[in-house]
């Protein structure tokens, strides 16, 4: 068992201990804070749908099972986990993403007691036919809630259009039909090997355009550019370069943003994200417009312009300065800190890297990143207003 200490002259210090059983334990003390925040997470999410049970034959489980399991672990033989936390007053919750399942609690009192509850319930699964059936009803409503959420749909439709094989194309919660297949008597097994996501993706996309109609006031769009990471995880520097690149391209200070407004193509800000995880990476730009295709063309033109003519030094410097401020601000929130710790555990890197790496990022890094935004990798997803 080894403990490493990481110190930053301005941002504090934290430790990382890898226990003999392989569990990574990150601890950061926040002097003066009243509340404690803990996260217990695992590299298991919606993309992990293939298993080898007890070293035996490989099986495929229904889509959405990681999210289903996240819900189910809140129950134990003694009763509901929420009742146990209710006795301490702690706030407790959980979430499932594409490649992670995380359980969290925060409290101002009784940290050790709450930590014991967290470790116990996550490691003590208890399922009955009755509780599995009950959860199917609750999660079916959760899925239906997201079916009406245009922001969620525009994103998942994009993934479906972008990926041919990678299971990131499957909705995190699965479908009402897929979760109905979950066996009523699902039982924990001693050991499973989670098959890692199929990385046999190429730059080629399933389709360049996808559209769905929903009850919305104006078309929503998400333009994505598929990137194939050279390693299973995108490095922290590349993630930061991606963030700066997207800010330069379509942030509120960009020439593109001004031009789209002046042309009447958008009224509100565009939001951009570098979406990445195990074996997947994509650059996404979202917004609302009466003419999503025209906006997409303008974005592509600006990418070409920046790649060929270079980027504005003043803006590049200002965006880096803001990125430093954002990195500093994350340490004001215990919630953000534990989320970042989990990202470090899953994707590599350290908590202080974002504040320290910035100085090494150059304009050429941004240009190199922009070159990944190719025509062949582009997908436009649109949610259009339903008529009638």
């Amino acid at each position: 068992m080894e403990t490493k200490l990481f110190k930053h002259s301005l941002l504090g210090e934290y430790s990382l201990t890898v226990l003999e059983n392989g569990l990574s334990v990150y601890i950061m003390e926040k002097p003066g804070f009243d509340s404690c925040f803990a996260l217990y997470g695992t590299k298991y999410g919606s993309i992990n749908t293939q298993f080898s049970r007890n070293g035996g034959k490989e099986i495929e489980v229904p889509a959405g099972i990681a999210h289903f399991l996240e819900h189910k672990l809140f129950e134990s033989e003694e009763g509901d986990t929420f009742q146990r936390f209710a006795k301490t007053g702690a706030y407790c919750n959980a979430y499932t993403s594409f490649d992670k399942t995380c359980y969290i609690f925060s409290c101002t009192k009784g940290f050790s007691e709450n930590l014991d509850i967290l470790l116990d319930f996550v490691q003590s699964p208890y399922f009955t036919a009755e509780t599995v059936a009950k959860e199917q009803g609750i999660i079916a409503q959760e899925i239906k809630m997201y079916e009406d959420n245009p922001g969620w749909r525009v994103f998942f439709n994009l993934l479906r259009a972008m990926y041919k094989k990678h299971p990131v194309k499957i909705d995190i919660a699965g479908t009402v039909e897929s979760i109905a297949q979950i066996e009523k008597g699902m039982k924990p097994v001693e050991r499973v090997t989670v098959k890692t996501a199929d990385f046999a993706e190429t730059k080629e996309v399933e389709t360049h355009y996808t559209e769905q109609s929903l009850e919305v006031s104006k078309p929503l769009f998400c333009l994505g550019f598929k990137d194939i990471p050279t390693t299973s995880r995108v490095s922290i520097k590349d993630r930061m370069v991606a963030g700066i690149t997207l800010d330069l391209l379509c942030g509120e200070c960009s020439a593109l943003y001004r031009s789209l407004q002046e042309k009447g193509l958008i009224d509100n800000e565009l939001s951009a994200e570098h979406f990445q995880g195990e074996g997947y990476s994509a650059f996404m730009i979202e917004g609302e417009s009466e003419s999503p295709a025209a906006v997409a063309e303008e974005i592509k033109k600006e990418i070409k312009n920046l790649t060929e003519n270079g980027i504005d030094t003043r803006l590049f410097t200002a965006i880096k300065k803001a990125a430093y401020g954002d990195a500093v601000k994350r340490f004001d929130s215990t919630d953000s800190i534990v989320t970042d710790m989990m990202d470090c555990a899953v994707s590599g890197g350290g908590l202080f890297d974002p504040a320290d790496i910035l100085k090494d990022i150059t304009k050429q890094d941004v240009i190199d990143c922009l070159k990944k935004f190719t025509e062949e990798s582009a997908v436009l997803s649109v949610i259009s207003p339903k008529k009638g």
Partner: protein
Amino acid sequence: MSLQKIDIAQGVQGYYIQNTRFNTTLITYNFYLPLNGEKMATASLLPFLLTSCSAEFRDYINLNIGLLDLYGADLSCSVSKSGDLFLVKIGINVINNNLALEADEPVSRAARLVSNLIFSPALENGLFCENDISREKRKTIERIVGEINNKKAFARTRLFEEMFGSDPYGKFIYGSAEEVKAITAEQLYAAWRELLSVAYVRINVIGSEYPTSVFALAKEKFGEVERCFNPSILTTKTDLAEVKTPRDITERFNVTQGKIAMGFTSKIKGSLKTASALSLFSDIFGGGPYSKLFENVREKQSLCYYCSAISRRNKGFVTVESGVEEQNAQKTIDAVLKELSDIQNGIFEDSTVEASKKAITDSLYGYYDNATALDVWYSREINEDITPEEAAELVMKVTRGDIINAAKGVKLHTVYRLMPKEAE
């Protein structure tokens, strides 16, 4: 942590909430005006216009570059209703000087920037510029028509409209698209002058160093304004009357899942000091996972993913929201009313009360770890200064009888159902 108050001008106060645990300083200007239905659209547009450009930053791109240069300071602007008051909040959150990469004093520069946005807007011939007005009108109209995109929020907005009728509290805060289109530059200018002269103003600063320069700047700027604030605007005046027969409204949209929004009148209303029992009641009713609605409507009956209650004590009412299948809508409504009736009849466990008290007090003690939450705290309780610890003490004093009494004063007023079209 300590609170220091200073008087800056007539009806303008500075609140310094010392907090050394953050890397940032948060400065917010909070303007309180009486709710006025006719002026609401203009009053809501104004702060977005003020925070989009200024005499110093003539357009939003220059302003945004200025914010990037302040280490990505977060400029925020919001409008909301607090009881019978209309609240405009304009704020900036910036990293502390000791964390700056160079000696460029981000805190005082941020204070100057936000002050210039409020007091020195971009004017042309003594009025706001037409281009800027048109841009902000388009954005506001987007907000109005885009409300339907979030069905849960839309159902809540419709419930409020139906519940409150002509009371301006029920009006959608941005007004209607037609009202926004009709706003003139003259009206906006008048609204700006009214904001500066008539509103009660509270400037909250949450940071590690006493904000001498922030308050001095505010004093200087308000010194140039003829203030005519009347303290009587700060007391809530209107009540929502109980109804004998609750209204039940159904509207149909192209959705997969239906939404239910239920509104209840409450006899108990007002500040934390007078309405702690109502807060505790609504938490037991439909707050945390120990609540009656979570335990019975979601977990036992598996009717929905969410079913939650919130008390809005400044105006004196309670709401319950849920997302359900249409065939389960009435069953859910009946289940909600059954849980309310149970609380009114004292059918709830002492352990639930204890769980609720612990969760609420834990959350209150956690306020000091979140600058935004602290700012909301000190801009919500404007008629009495009460700390989160004092509020926690009040919650702990609430008895089982107080909860039953609060529940007995809660009566169904309106049910709003947003349902799928296909089911017609």
